[in-house]
């Protein structure tokens, strides 16, 4: 490059848009451009040849100084950014904010340059970034404001959904009372008008509850709090539940609802059964709501099947009012139904589909609708599930011989007929379907003629002209000499009771509609005398439901008195006996004393909540299998999760829906003899007798309880209160203490002697619980202290408390000894056990006697069987004469005479 005019170069540097300073090897300023003069208010001649850090002493030991040194000694360049360099040159600039002499924000570059002799100089280049800084400052402020308002909006939203969740909880509690009480009231004697009123109260409460649930779900969706569970479930159970929920309404509308599940749909799935059920129920109940006549069909088929995953298509098709395209478009938006007039006409929040859409999305699927006005609607959605037990085939026929089995279906509803036929055909049965009773009879006759008789006949009860019952009767009558088919009668929900009352021999199995494939399978297998393993849950539930609870002993742990009353009476209606504990602690104490078939556990309770109580119960191996069912009013998926984690088996939402409570309970309470274990599982009579044996008529026993006015060391009022004034139970608990805990102090001591602190602590803990329950305040306090002392290994305190305990127990036991005078004579445990056994016998005898009283009064020849049972239980040949006479009389229908003999027998038996 040619030598350039020095003046020209200096001018160029002077007018640069950046500050330029050049330092010699001694850090003295040798160049300072005009930009620097302006910014620093220092003319070049005042700074020339000055060491820069003497000019700017505040920069000594700063990054700037180190950068300059680095450049001069090593030739290393440095870029000093505004934010990371606290100390920069004192330069000023004009800015909007700071006026004419605002402090300049700078970006500084420090570089080494060499002169023509190769000597290193240092060049400092300064850029004014004040505007950039204030611009970004503004930008950040804006972003901050935005974030702030977003947070405010979010927390407002949070507050809103917290409020809703809270309100929903608050609303549920009185709702429980309204629904439960009206349900109970409906079971009492009412005149038509009262019944109508109450029915309307109950219906309204139910639909109000539905609305509250919708709103809660919607608020959860809004707050992004809706969660999906991943639990193994059985698809048919979900469908059955949906059927239960919509069948009553469907029947009121005169609709047929049918379910069809394609043969290749896997039933063992992993996903969220509650949410799936919610979507299906929503779609199905919409379908029912908007269909005046015709059918609602809910069908399921496979869209994609992999080894561990399946995509299912669910389809809900109705023959209802349908929708225009415009209406369909706004269908899935919140707060809108097809049009606002339908909202008024059909009720509902209009949130259902919005919620469904979201739930479907969370199940990895999508939802859509096909419809036209007056052409009905078809809602479909897909959902993805994981598969469990991928290799298990569904309806596996127990025997190859059953392939091609001939089955006849008679139903006047073409869709139900088709669905039933498809289901049966999917088991590889050979199915003939007809539309009427007459045709059915014709087909049966024909088949017999061709020597290809039907093995099973499905009859719809509601066929025109000749209904199912008549057809069944006619079949038995006409073909009595021939090989008779097994007959399965399809009834509707409301006909259940009528049909059961009729109790005809003509029908082998009653099935309540809507039926699904696995129910049809189970029913078919049952009438053919085959046991069905899992597939018959639904059917078994249906059959066992009413009876499963009969005779069962249930512990209800619940603090709210109204809830106690409702649950207790509902369960007692079903034949269960119920004991109440008002909090977790009482519950824990109660199960130590009495054997229960199941525990219903409230969650929020004073003293000890349901989670803690359950954990304590589960710690004890003896209660590992005791069914514990949570009752919560929170209805959050997370609560359910928490319940399961605490060791509970299931979860019931409050307000209690009686049907689902019974269903859930019956799933856990095993009837002592399972229907499926018998060759003819549906023999109801036998069933009831089993039940009668188990039943402990609480009322009868309660009347006979005699309690003393006072008991030494026991606050009886408090004790009775803790068992809800159930004197029988109180007596039972007292007896329990008396028989088991005479030597409680010694028991604890000997456990401690062998170093088993755990057992010692448990004994103290249990004793604390029971003494609290009976109102033995002093014993309670001592054992509480003792338990603490054992827990902390406080040996001196332990021995002190043990002495106190053994002293304090004595007077209480003396008092109890007087109360249980008879037992006092037999102190050794063997005899006690016998006494207990006899006690059980006594209650069984009482139960049978009361049942027999009714049967004989009614002139029912079923009495004969009960007499037999009674005879067996009494077990003594001493009464044989009376029993034989009674049997003869009943057999001859001489009920009046039988009554007399029976009374005599009862009088004798009561002396046992």
């Amino acid at each position, binding site marked *: 490059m040619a030598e350039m005019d020095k003046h020209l170069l200096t001018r160029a540097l002077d007018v640069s848009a950046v500050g330029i300073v050049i330092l010699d090897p001694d850090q003295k300023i040798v160049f300072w451009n005009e930009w620097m003069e302006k910014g620093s208010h220092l003319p070049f001649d005042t700074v020339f040849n000055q060491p820069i850090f003497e000019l700017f002493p505040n920069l000594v030991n700063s990054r700037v100084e180190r950068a300059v040194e680095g450049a001069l000694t090593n030739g*290393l360049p440095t870029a000093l950014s505004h934010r990371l360099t606290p100390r920069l040159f004192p330069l000023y600039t004009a800015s909007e904010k700071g006026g004419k002499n605002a402090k300049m924000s700078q970006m500084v570059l420090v570089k080494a340059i060499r002169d023509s002799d190769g000597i290193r100089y240092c060049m400092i280049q300064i850029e004014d970034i004040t505007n950039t800084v204030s611009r970004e400052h503004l930008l950040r402020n804006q972003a901050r404001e935005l974030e702030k308002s977003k947070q405010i909006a979010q927390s407002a939203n949070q507050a809103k959904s917290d409020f809703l969740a809270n309100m929903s909880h608050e609303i549920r509690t009185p709702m429980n009372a309204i629904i439960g009480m009206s349900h109970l009231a409906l079971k009492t004697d009412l005149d038509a008008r009262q019944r109508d009123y109450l029915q309307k109260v109950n219906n309204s409460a139910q639909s109000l509850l539905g609305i509250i649930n919708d709103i809660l779900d919607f608020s959860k969706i809004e707050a992004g709090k809706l969660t999906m569970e991943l639990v193994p479930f059985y698809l048919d159970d979900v469908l059955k539940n949906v059927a239960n929920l919509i069948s009553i309404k469907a029947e009121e509308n005169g609709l047929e609802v049918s379910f069809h599940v394609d043969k290749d749909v896997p039933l063992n799935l992993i996903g969220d059964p509650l949410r799936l059920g919610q979507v299906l129920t929503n779609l199905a109940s919409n379908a029912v709501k908007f269909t005046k006549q015709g059918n609602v069909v809910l069908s399921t088929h496979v869209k994609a099947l992999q080894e561990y995953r399946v995509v299912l298509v669910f389809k809900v098709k109705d023959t209802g009012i349908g929708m225009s395209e415009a209406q369909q478009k706004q269908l899935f938006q919140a707060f809108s139904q097809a049009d606002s007039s339908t909202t008024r006409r059909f009720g509902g929040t209009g949130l259902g589909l919005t919620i469904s859409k979201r739930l479907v999305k969370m199940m990895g699927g999508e939802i859509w609708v096909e419809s036209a006005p007056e052409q009905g609607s078809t809602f479909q959605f897909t959902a993805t599930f994981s598969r469990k037990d991928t290799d298990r085939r569904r309806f596996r026929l127990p025997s190859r011989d059953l392939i091609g089995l001939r089955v006849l279906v008679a139903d006047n509803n073409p869709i139900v007929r088709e669905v039933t036929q498809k289901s049966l055909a999917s088991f590889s049965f050979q199915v003939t379907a007809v539309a009427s009773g007459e045709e059915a009879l014709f087909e049966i006759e024909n088949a017999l003629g061709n020597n290809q008789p039907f093995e099973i006949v499905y009859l719809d009860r509601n066929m025109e002209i000749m209904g199912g019952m008549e057809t069944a009767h006619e079949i038995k009558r006409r073909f009595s000499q021939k090989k008779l088919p097994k007959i399965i009668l399809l009834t509707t929900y409301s006909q259940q009771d009528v049909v059961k009352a009729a109790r005809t021999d003509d029908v082998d199995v009653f099935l309540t509609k809507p039926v699904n494939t696995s129910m049809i399978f189970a029913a078919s297998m049952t009438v053919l005398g085959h046991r069905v393993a899992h597939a018959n849950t639904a059917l078994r539930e249906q059959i066992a439901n009413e009876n499963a609870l009969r005779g069962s002993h249930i512990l209800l742990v619940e603090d709210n008195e109204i809830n106690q009353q409702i649950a207790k009476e509902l369960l007692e209606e079903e034949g269960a006996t119920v004991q109440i504990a008002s909090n977790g602690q009482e519950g824990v104490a109660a199960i130590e004393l009495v054997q229960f078939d199941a525990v219903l556990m409230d969650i929020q309770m004073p003293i000890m909540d349901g989670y803690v109580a359950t954990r304590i119960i589960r710690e004890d191996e003896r209660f590992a299998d005791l069914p514990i069912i949570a009752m919560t009013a929170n209805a959050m998926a997370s609560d359910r999760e928490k319940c399961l984690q605490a060791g509970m088996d299931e979860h019931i939402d409050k307000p209690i829906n009686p049907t689902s409570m019974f269903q859930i309970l019956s799933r856990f309470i095993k009837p002592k003899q399972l229907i499926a274990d018998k060759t003819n599982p549906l023999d109801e009579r036998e069933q009831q007798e089993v039940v009668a044996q188990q039943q402990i008529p609480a009322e009868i026993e309660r009347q006979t309880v005699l309690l003393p006015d006072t008991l030494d060391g026991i606050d009886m009022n408090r004790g009775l209160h803790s068992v809800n004034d159930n004197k029988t139970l109180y007596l039972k608990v007292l007896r329990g203490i008396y028989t088991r805990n005479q030597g409680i102090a010694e028991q604890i001591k000997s456990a401690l002697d062998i170093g088993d602190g755990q057992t010692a602590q448990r004994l103290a803990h249990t004793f604390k619980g029971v003494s609290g329950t009976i109102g033995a305040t002093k014993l309670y306090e001592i054992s509480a202290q003792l338990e603490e002392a054992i827990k902390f290994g406080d040996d001196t305190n332990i021995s002190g408390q043990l002495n106190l305990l053994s002293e304090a127990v004595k007077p209480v036991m003396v008092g109890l000894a007087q109360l249980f005078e008879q037992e006092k004579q037999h102190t050794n445990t063997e005899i006690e056990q016998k006494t207990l056994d006899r006690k059980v016998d006594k209650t069984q005898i009482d139960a049978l006697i009361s049942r027999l009283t009714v049967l004989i009064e009614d002139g029912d020849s079923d009495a004969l069987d009960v007499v037999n049972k009674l005879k067996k239980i009494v077990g003594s040949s001493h009464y044989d004469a009376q029993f034989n006479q009674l049997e003869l009389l009943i057999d001859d229908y001489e009920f009046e005479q039988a009554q007399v003999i029976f009374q005599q027998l009862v009088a004798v038996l009561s002396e046992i």
Partner: protein
Amino acid sequence: MEKVECRRVFKLSALEEDALKEFFNMGLGMAADSLSQMVDNEVLLSLPQLKIVSYEEATAHLVANQKEKLVAVRQNFIGELSGTALLIFPGAESLELVRTLLSDDMPLDILSELEQETLLDVGNVILNAFLASFTQMMSVEFDFEAAEFLKGSSEFLLNITSHLATQQRAIMGDSVADDERAVLLMMDFKTSDEEKKQHTLSGFVVLLFTRQAMAVLKKELETILGQW
């Protein structure tokens, strides 16, 4: 075949590679020291991984680690041993780094102008510390170009022709493919801030040399090792 050939030319002995690693290690230590003074927190150091790789291998390595555009600070050095030093941050981590340094309470979605300047500053500090310790061991003289902020694909960043005018000229006369060599040194920075575990930073330092420069480097290493 040609590639195998040229690889042999640049094959460093185990001892030479070890020495280079130790220089880098010391450079890394100095860089971490500077950085720790700036963040007022200890910067954890990992064992440096040294790899001498071809352009293709280096790009493949970077691409496998990061798909989006990379952010880098470049510093060219010129002299007997010319080359390019790059400090490469995977995109998201550069944002994270600069925001840790600035403790920005309200980060913007993009790397703002000031943040770019900050990053340049940091990159410069790290590379300076690194290069200082590296060049101190050498007998040759260096001059340094100012640090620059770059943004681009790994293909662009690792291509030596993208960087140095003098090198570019040298390459033009030579067979380009053979000379596109990169000494790739990976190093990880980790802040040890106990409370802000999320602020884990990492980056690569890459040195790009031409074949000629590599030969000089090898000779330098031989000289240094001869002293001991």
